[in-house]
């Protein structure tokens, strides 16, 4: 099983996915769980290609900030505007790309943490989002300790 956090540490709450990975690095994870800090969704493609079960932790723009949601692939926004960069892929595009080029991509679980749109260049999370990061890390940890992601969905 792999767990990947996405984000940009210099964009405040957008770095919450990376913060969750940081918290999990300090936790007592079962053997066989790998952690990944990613800056670009395209980096998900080789992870998905391993055929292992995986969890993607990322920020989503939604109110109120600090709410953690567990989503499936079908619940992600498929519009092209969901891509954060014109020279990059959205998370969903990365998953679809992986499915097109790798035969054994397993369904992915998304742990989405709601944030407000970052408006300034700074490091660190707001208190609500930091609390959500702790909650998300605990959720992923409990799931990994329970033996897999099949129990992650509430």
């Amino acid at each position, binding site marked *: 099983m792999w767990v990947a956090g996405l984000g940009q540490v210099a964009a405040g709450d957008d770095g919450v996915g990376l913060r969750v990975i940081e918290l999990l690095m300090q936790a007592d994870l079962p053997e066989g769980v790998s952690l990944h800090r990613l800056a670009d969704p395209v980096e998900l493609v080789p992870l998905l290609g391993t055929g292992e079960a995986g969890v993607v932790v990322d920020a989503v723009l939604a109110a109120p900030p600090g709410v953690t949601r567990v989503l499936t692939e079908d619940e992600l926004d498929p519009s092209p505007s969901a*891509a954060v960069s014109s020279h990059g892929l959205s998370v969903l595009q990365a998953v679809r790309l992986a499915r*097109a080029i790798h035969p054994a991509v397993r369904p992915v679980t998304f742990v989405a943490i709601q944030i407000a749109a970052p408006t300034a260049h700074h490091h660190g999370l707001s208190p609500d989002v930091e609390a959500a990061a702790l909650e998300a890390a605990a959720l992923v940890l409990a799931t990994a300790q329970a033996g897999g992601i099949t129990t992650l969905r509430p």
Partner: protein
Amino acid sequence: MSEARTIKVDYLARVEGEGALTVVVKDGVAQDVRLSIFEPPRFYEGFLRGRGFREVPDITARICGICPVAYQMSSCQAMEDALGWVVPEPLQRLRRLLYCGEWIESHALHMFMLHAPDFLGVQDVVALAELHPEWVKAALHIKKTGNELMRIVGGREIHPINVRVGGFYRAPRKAELAALLPDLESSLQEAQAALPWLATFDYPELERDWELVTLKHPEEYPFCRGNIVSSHGIDVPFSGFPDHFEERHMAHSNALHAVVKARGHYHTGPMARFNLCFDTLGEAAKASAAQVGLTVPCMNPFKSLLVRGVELIQALDEAVRIVADYRPPSEPFVEGPVHAGTGHGASEAPRGMLYHRYTIDDAGLITDAVIVPPTAQNQGTIEDDLRALAPQLATLPLEDATWRAEQAVRNYDPCISCATHFLKLRFEEAS
């Protein structure tokens, strides 16, 4: 009286940044062509003033997430020119290796993920992967190899942090680079195998007579060194740029248009490098070009896809050779006295020549800065290409004409900036 046809793309997709396109065609003649860049200006040249000269590679790298190395190289060169610091050959080769990394990741991204879909009639790389998973898989591997090279030499993949005026903060160890050699070699093989596939695409007919502008060096394919040359006779050191080129404000765009003084628009980028510097390509790149029948002169902008493919092979081949011969330099950087001065720098970003000029005071603080990016230089030429394409656009169904016009813009891999955007098309028939 025939009707005018307006092709309007409110948001250009698969280019970097926020731009729109309007083409009005009547009787097969372009009445109006506007590539509008509406992304707000970012005022880098303004806020560089008052900053220390050592800050410039890190600040200017932030202009672009796709070609930060180009900004770092041109800015460092300009500062070294102002200060009279001479960077020795081993560090020049390391800079060249870092530049290879940027070309590899940028060209692989543009060719396979942004431009190839145009030729195959699919919307994006995800659809392309459903048709040709083997080539998309290869492209992702090539791009990852370029990113890894950037990480090892530059400290990280995006906005490298290891570049400083005078060289690098730290030179990579031999073993770090050697570990990447198998990936570089297999990426080279993938790029060589992909070029004949790319050559099977249907390339629209269009022959242009651009003035081509590039750096040119007698012994190496241009990255950081040489003179600024043009197909129309310019041959000057970097300091000659202001004598021959100028930037103009255009009402419809937030980006300046660069022109050759007294002549007008010009073309910088892979087509200029390939046509004017073909003799300095390595044997591997030349052999691949010959294999697909790509010769100079090549003045069809749509064939820029193939030219980028040749340059991708060149960058991978050079990277293999530099890594194989690499010996860490005795010192990772040079330094010298700081004094007032003006310096010029230029290098070849993946999408064209990037010129910087700075003036610093005795304390090393910047008092004036000029940055001329490749997309500003190519903007007028993109519009000229669309005018030349107008007779074709007039005969195509509107949807196909819109597709072709966007494809013509993407021939240039324009880098308007790093920004979120999306595609929204609107068609208008005007009388």
